[in-house]
């Protein structure tokens, strides 16, 4: 593939000294330049930032930033319920919550950081996200009252419904 020669080659020289191919369309960026965009956190690909937060701190964050929609108790507001439902998934009235349904704690951190609070997403610091994650795990009996989270401790958490998911079995004969 022909490569644009006019671009300064130095721009693309990596740490190991090998110049990667110069793109014909699009602009080369470094991971450092897009660090602010690179916010995903997941169980398989990592991404948990530095920082820490406790259940006690999370209770205060929750009251200020979350209770308006999710209710003071986590299951008494107009927004989706955040607690309860353990053991209900096979019943006539399943209640799918963080405690009863979500398979990964990393997903909770990721979603709170990227999308919550709904009316001002991105307004919580990483410490506050750790704290409110700890609090949400506390009200689902996954962390103790004196619990605290950082990257290492969050990655150790095994959610109650971790084994509850199966890959899509449908094919052209399956319902």
């Amino acid at each position, binding site marked *: 593939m022909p490569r644009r020669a006019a671009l300064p080659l130095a721009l*693309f020289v990596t740490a190991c000294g090998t110049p*990667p*191919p110069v*793109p*014909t*369309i*699009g*602009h*080369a*960026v*470094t*991971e450092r330049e*897009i660090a602010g*965009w*690179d*916010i*995903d956190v*997941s*169980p*398989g*690909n990592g991404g948990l930032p530095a920082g820490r937060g406790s259940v006690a701190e999370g209770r205060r964050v929750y009251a200020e930033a979350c209770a308006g*929609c999710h209710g003071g108790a986590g299951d008494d507001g*107009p*927004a989706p319920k955040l607690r309860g439902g353990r053991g209900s*998934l*096979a019943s006539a009235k*399943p209640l*799918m919550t*963080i405690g009863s*349904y*979500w*398979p*990964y704690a*990393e*997903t909770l951190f*990721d*979603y709170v950081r*990227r*999308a919550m609070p*709904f009316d001002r*997403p991105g307004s919580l610091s990483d410490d506050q996200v750790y704290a409110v994650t700890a609090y949400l795990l506390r009200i689902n009996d996954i962390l103790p009252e004196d619990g605290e989270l950082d990257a290492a401790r969050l990655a150790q958490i095994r959610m109650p419904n971790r084994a*509850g*998911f*199966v*890959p*899509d*079995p*449908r094919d*052209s*004969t*399956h*319902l």
Partner: protein
Amino acid sequence: MTSRRRLLGAGLTALGGLTVARAAEFPPESERAPGLPVLSPAYGQPSPRLSGLTRRSWSAPPLEQASSLTPLGGLHGTVTPNGLFYERHHSGVPDLDPDRHRLVIHGAVRQPLAFSLDDLLRFPSVSRLHFLECTGNSGSELVKPTRDTVQGTHGLLSGAEWTGVPLSALLDEAGLLPSGRWLLAEGADAGRMTRSVPIDKALDDALIVYGQNGEPLRPEQGFPMRLFLPGWGGNLSVKWLRRLKVAAEPFYTREETSKYTDLMPDGSARLFTWAMDAKSVITRPSGGQVLNGGPGSYQISGLAWSGRGRIAAVEISTDGGRSWRRAPLQEPVLSKCLTRFSLKWEWSGGPAILQSRAIDDTGYRQPTRDQLIAARGTHGAYHNNAIQSWRVDPSGQVGNIHA
């Protein structure tokens, strides 16, 4: 026409029936003076006599759960006008400046790249006709008939011509590394909507789309650019696309774990149920419409689609499923695209129950509701592709029933 407009406004369409103007009324008003000039208005609008033909919502849920539905019962062919294309947003519609918006591809690639809209226009473009259906379409109808019209029961479905660049071309530019098995697609909306996409789909038929039905994407469809994954549940085609991260593992985002998974009767849940199975629905006559021409000849017309390939056949029953007839398919019949079917029907004037069922080119047959519930129970509101029934009363009124 006034009465027809009132009917449309109420979600009703009169089928058949004719009022012929008396000779004394010739020439009619419209032929006695020139009409409106050009640019009336500059961006054309439907006839004001069709003011009821709009998207609508069935409830006022929180913004996070908001959707609006396409008025399928009042439309023709297989392409949905952009102003009537269904909406589903998880954090509202952002206002993005196309000159400042960038799509970044990074992670397991040789060279992370940022693409502007102008950059995308430098690639060879492709235009493809595909349906888009929300995974939750018809979810309200699984347990009992809930909504009066096909807009309510099936309106989280639309079809369009999508123009853009194959995602494989952008991944070629960035240089996909062998460790890259999954992509995270992320939007630039307030919720930074994210879904994981397996690399096989990304390299197969995934598009980065900037055009829809000949014009730039509308804001509510992802302007200036979106991901488009033919045949897969709508929310996977992430709108306002700003980032694609290539990685070894899926990301298990909130939308693909706590939502858009299928809870089974035993308490387990299906994960990554991407494809939309073969489905069909009769749009005329359908709920809320009226056969007011009396007994006689009508066309039963509707839409069939499959997220796994082409529609092979559509069968129609007018007796609640006791007997079935093959309905001719309107050309073109395209893969992962709405296909229009139409069959002549002699209405005796008695009660009738109209149904359609689709078969795709994998051999999959659209199930009955009982078959679907036997396999999956009633906990999941997603992926309801059961056969829809419309009841025709002797008065000509058409309504939604479970037959």
